[in-house]
């Protein structure tokens, strides 16, 4: 092994002769090579149904045929059983905050979000898992684990086949869900497998 294994090979270590046109130019340290690839995504069966229902202000989950757990947003598969989901379940647009985060830094893709803002796992009534949403119409520092919330839909004339139809989740004012035992704090959502 060479004395200094990280040194360039001897053949390269000597003087390099460059054409007069570039003599005295700065050595190249890096090159910028933009990569552009274009993809046409398709959401798949479950998410298509979910997004189409969103346009009508409906939230569709899907049920595991083996355990009965309800997943939302649905991915078309039950991770508990390794099977295609067995059926569609329409869920209420109310639920509770399972846990939350107060973001105090700006986020590149959402210039509309002014920090601090609260993102939370929302567990819908009847769902077995939580998903991320914004908690709005309440100061972030007043958000609580267990707080009841309902969807704040965009105005009807702005509805699309998009999860963005729900602008956020606001407090309902109902009493909080009680999540105070160890077991439930460690776990997310309702049912255990």
């Amino acid at each position, binding site marked *: 092994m060479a004395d200094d294994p990280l040194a360039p090979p001897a053949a390269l270590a000597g003087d390099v002769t460059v054409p007069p046109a570039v003599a005295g130019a700065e050595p190249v340290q890096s090159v910028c090579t933009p990569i552009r690839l274009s993809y046409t995504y398709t959401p798949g*069966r479950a*998410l298509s149904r979910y997004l189409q229902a969103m346009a009508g202000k409906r939230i569709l989950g899907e049920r595991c045929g083996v355990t009965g757990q309800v997943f939302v947003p649905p991915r078309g598969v039950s991770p508990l059983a*390794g099977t295609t989901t067995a059926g569609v379940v329409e869920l209420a647009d109310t639920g509770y905050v399972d846990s939350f985060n107060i973001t105090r830094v700006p986020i590149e893709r959402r210039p509309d979000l002014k920090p601090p803002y609260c993102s939370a796992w929302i567990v819908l009534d009847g769902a077995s898992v939580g998903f991320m949403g914004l908690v709005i119409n309440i100061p972030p520092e007043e958000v609580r684990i267990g707080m009841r919330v309902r969807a704040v839909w965009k105005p009807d004339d702005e509805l699309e086949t998009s999860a963005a139809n729900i602008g956020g989740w606001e407090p309902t004012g109902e009493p909080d869900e009680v999540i105070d035992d160890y077991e439930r704090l460690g776990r997310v959502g309702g049912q255990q497998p």
Partner: protein
Amino acid sequence: MIDVAVVSFAQRQEASIPGESEVEFMVPLMEQAKAAVDLTQADMGFTCSGSSDFLAGQAFSFVMTIDGTGPVPPISESHVEQDGAWALYEAWVKIQCGGIDTAFVYGYGKSSPGSLRDVLATQMDPYYVCPLWPDSYAVEALAARLMLEGGHVSERRLAEIAARSRVSAASNPHAVRSEPKTVDEILAEDHVLDPLRPSDLPAEADGGCAIVLAAGDRARELCERPAWIRGMDHRGDAHTLGVRDLTSSMSARLAAQHAGVADDKVDLAELYGPFTTSEHLLIDALGLDEDATAINPSGGALAAHTMMASGLIRIGEAASRIWSGDGDRAVAHATSGPCLQQNLVCVLEGD
């Protein structure tokens, strides 16, 4: 070595599967492969998969697909960003470590959301080659011209390979290009990437496959005639096209030697040759005699090219012909990278 066999195989390949996400079309295949040998995920000693984020256009894309296995309770699992054939290799090695006697392997990919030819350009050297955006099919055309002009192959020979694939594909329900064409009809095709014609190119497909491996007595319990892996090896060539001989495949030859291809007769070979030129090179590198060995009875990747799964599908296709008694000894091959840069060879035998 511990005797390990391929005991179950399920696949799906279509020109495109636009209506289903990867996990949605993989779940039925996973269930089918396990159900065929009456196993569940909980029975699997190890699970390994192969897929590509660049193909999916999404970072951590495999995280969405693992749910299809039913990984609750947790599973002993790994993933390679390579063709599923390398996932099978990893699983085979894991069984060789002892302590487990089953493994579940899958590979999948959808080329239809993007342009495979452009996506594969990002495999090339990121400093010197990728910035030029070489069309990955045109890169193979460079090799083809070297082969043709160097007298290593004739255009007629390439057309014969293409015609043979189409004939074989006619009996493969998973083939996406199977309409018959004569050699003369193929030679009459206009060049698309001179010297390559449309029939010289892979038939792009979306899809995937799932395989169950089992060791020793467990394999015999699960399968009437297990397809035993008698040898498996993979090797790589240099990446830089200018420093290697594109008219032969050193790494395929080496992998074939280490896998023991020449130790006995070969009844059939499933070769992952995306192009007619690659199939020609592989037959030579693996030392196959076309009079004695059925080459690509499935039609091969010319008939259906499912990126990230085509290699694993070759292993499944070869194994299923051992199960059925169509052959006693088969060779399966997988490749990765431009111009057959990496090659994996697997020798399968019936009892």
